């Protein structure tokens, strides 16, 4: 292996992926240049173009559909699959063969993420792939594109940083790493996306960030992607005269983003057209959605623009025969987006809706039921106040008041190119702050809203060598396993479940949690499962804390975890007492191990269990 020459940041997005890099030999005093990788991809039959974004789509072509000579890439004359822009375009006409949103599926706990389930609505004869396979395919494409552009510095030798939503659970993080390894990227470092955006802001400020934030401040990062919304809080502190940064809280995984906004507008226009007596075919609705995206951006960027004409031409050679013509007005956009997604609301009126863990047969993604981003934000700030009050060092924004009071806001995501949406979010937040008698928050500017995550990831890869400030970020949640409490059985009622804390909140990289005082008997050679829970708000639970009751919403059920003790060391059927111990690796991954009470043997506990419904449940 040769010395790494680049820090490479990969933003594996729900709808688009981006790769950027920083030369590792950039001196700390030098200006950091973050370079974006042009990604060659098929944009039509036999046609390859380079773009900075690779649409995260794979098209499962019918064997008769496409001449295989038309499927080429600069580094491969016979790629197995169609990925990127052409895949997206083909899929817009044949959605049953399009694999999309693989990232959302990767974090969907109610499905087996290794099983071939995508595309979910495909008829029988469409070959399906797993969310893991899809992620691997996108990463392999990015890997090949990098190696094609940098034959002298293959990606396998570089420092790779891969971004994930802050709200990704340990299983989704593990699967992301597994996909990266399968794609030829060994040992990638994971970085939470809101943090990556913040690193990009640090990089873009060219060293002047120290002048724009002060110790005691709390920065709210709002990252709205195509399909997800992610919140994080970063606290600014001071140590030995230098500013320090710490990511103190993350929000829930919210499947709500820019794509929902385009849909909302398109459905509004459809209603309008149908009121005029037009019947729309499904391809027209789709074309309307694309047209709305462009019109929305024009209207949001220019408030003086009254309306934008929307035209959907016919599919045949005659553009004008059967053409759909309507208009999207400034009021409609304001109504649907500004008021629909960012309404002013009373912080205290928002109720937390508990989403029960859905059944294993769910076919769709668990989309957010409430489209109001401000409502999700209100809940996040309210719930985190209670949680952060318990922190050792209480910062000003966490004292008093009824919610965490951010002093500054960093926005990320293409929708915030709109000045009006940026301002509206700030206005709503400042209304809450005013009611709480706190100073208004300000916007931190200067990040590239579409590319900040990838840019920040490459910058972080360089910073990890030591030259710049790093955000301190332990695990953003505590983890629990389910323990059936030893109570006399009551017919008709399952034994009540207790939650045993095995990993406290805020475990730092490279640390191991204490051994919990509870032993589990594990049968050798048989998979044994544990119920697994997480909490983003309980900060004071230590290893060994047993909860027999918790407020609704404090704990969230994750997919079961599983351990198999290999037969080599024991006789099959033996019952071995083990402890479950958590540790966080140097690159920030949570790992669980089963440790034998005697002998100290260790076995890995898998987060994402392979489909085997017959596995037995662990008992203490």
């Amino acid at each position, binding site marked *: 292996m040769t010395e790494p020459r680049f820090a490479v940041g990969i933003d594996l997005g729900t709808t688009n992926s981006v790769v950027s890099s920083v030369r590792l030999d950039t001196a700390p005093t030098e200006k950091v240049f973050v370079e974006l990788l042009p990604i*060659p991809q098929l944009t039509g039959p*036999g046609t*390859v173009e380079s773009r900075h974004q690779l649409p995260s789509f794979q098209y499962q072509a019918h064997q008769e559909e496409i001449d295989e*000579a*038309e499927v080429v890439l600069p580094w491969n*004359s016979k790629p197995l699959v169609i990925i990127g822009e052409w895949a997206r375009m083909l899929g817009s006409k044949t959605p049953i063969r399009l694999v999309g949103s693989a990232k959302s599926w990767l974090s969907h706990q109610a499905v087996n993420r290794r099983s071939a389930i995508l595309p979910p609505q495909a008829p029988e004869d469409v070959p399906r792939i797993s969310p893991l396979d899809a992620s691997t395919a996108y990463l392999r494409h990015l890997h090949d594109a990098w190696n094609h552009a940098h034959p002298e510095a293959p990606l396998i030798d570089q420092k790779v940083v891969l971004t994930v939503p802050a709200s990704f659970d340990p299983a989704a993080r593990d699967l992301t790493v597994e996909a990266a390894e399968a794609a030829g990227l060994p040992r990638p470092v994971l970085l939470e996306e809101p943090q990556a955006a913040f690193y990009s802001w640090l990089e873009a400020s060219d060293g002047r960030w120290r002048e724009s934030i002060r110790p005691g401040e709390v920065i709210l990062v709002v990252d709205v992607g195509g399909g997800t919304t992610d919140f994080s809080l970063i606290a600014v502190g001071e140590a030995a005269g230098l500013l320090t940064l710490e990511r103190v809280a993350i929000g829930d995984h919210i499947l709500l983003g820019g794509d929902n906004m385009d849909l909302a507008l398109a459905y509004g226009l459809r209603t309008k057209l149908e009121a005029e007596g037009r019947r729309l075919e499904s391809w027209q609705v789709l074309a309307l959605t694309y047209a709305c995206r462009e019109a929305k951006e024009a209207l949001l960027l220019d408030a003086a623009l009254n309306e934008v004409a929307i035209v959907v*031409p016919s599919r045949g050679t*005659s553009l004008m025969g059967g053409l759909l*013509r309507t208009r999207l007005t400034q009021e409609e956009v304001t109504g649907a987006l500004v008021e629909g997604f960012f309404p002013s609301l009373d912080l205290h009126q928002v109720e937390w809706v508990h989403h029960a863990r859905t059944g294993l047969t769910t076919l769709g993604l668990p989309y957010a039921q409430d489209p109001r981003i401000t409502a999700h934000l209100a809940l996040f700030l309210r719930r985190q106040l209670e949680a952060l009050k318990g922190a050792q060092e209480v910062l000003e924004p966490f004292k008093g008041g009824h919610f965490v009071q951010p002093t500054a806001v960093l926005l990320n995501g293409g929708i915030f190119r709109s000045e009006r949406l940026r301002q509206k979010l700030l206005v709503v937040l400042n209304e809450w702050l005013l009611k709480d008698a706190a100073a208004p928050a300000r916007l931190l500017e200067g990040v590239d809203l579409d590319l900040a995550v990838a840019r920040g990831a490459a910058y972080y890869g360089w910073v990890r060598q030591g030259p710049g400030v790093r955000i301190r970020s332990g695990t953003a949640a505590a983890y629990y396993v389910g323990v059936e409490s030893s109570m006399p059985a009551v017919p008709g009622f399952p034994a009540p479940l207790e939650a045993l804390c095995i990993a406290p909140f805020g475990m730092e990289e490279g640390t191991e949690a204490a051994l919990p005082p509870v032993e589990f008997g594990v049968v050798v050679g048989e998979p044994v499962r544990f119920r697994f829970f997480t909490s983003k708000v309980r900060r004071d639970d230590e290893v060994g804390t047993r909860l027999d009751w918790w407020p609704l919403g404090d704990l969230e059920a994750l997919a079961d975890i599983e351990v198999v003790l290999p037969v080599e060391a024991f006789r099959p059927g033996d019952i071995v007492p083990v402890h479950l111990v958590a540790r966080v690796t140097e690159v920030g991954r949570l790992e669980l191990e089963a440790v034998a009470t005697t002998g100290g043997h260790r076995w890995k506990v898998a987060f994402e269990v392979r489909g085997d419904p017959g596995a037995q449940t662990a008992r203490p």
Partner: protein
Amino acid sequence: MQFDPNLIPTTLDLVHLTLAVVVAFLTLLAIVLGLLWAKASKKTPSNVEPVPNIMPAPVLRAAPEEGALVFLSLLQQEARFIDFVEEDLSHHADADIGAAARVVHAGCQKLFRQHLELKSIRSEAEGSAIALPRGFDASSIRLSGHVVGEAPFKGVLVHPGWRAESIRLPTIGERHDVRILAPAEVEL
């Protein structure tokens, strides 16, 4: 050397006529041979030996056909350009034509932004007075109207011109047929 125009024969005698015919024939032969040779060694047409005593034939090259077809196919894909040009407008109302023009315009604009970097040749405002020095680049500035006298010229900028600073055409597969500008679509 002295040159006396009176020595040029004013009438053609048979010898000179024959000579003239021979010269013409040889010239023609040289051109035909040259062309044939150029065709045979297609890649290096500039290697043709200059024929002595005549003006070299102008070097003309065919504008690359492939690039044009690829760009046309992009225009159709993004902007429905071929559909629009091939449509008979006489049966349609101006409002419908206007609506269709929006589709074509938006698509062309997107395509241009993605593939072309365009720049005005002159940065002055249209309609402003402009002076052209001696030795101005005649290939990038076209004179019109009362074109007399010598540079420097004074005139009015009618159109600032366009220059393609760069064009990025896609790369294409070896067996890709660029003549398929848009495949026929069949919905199952």
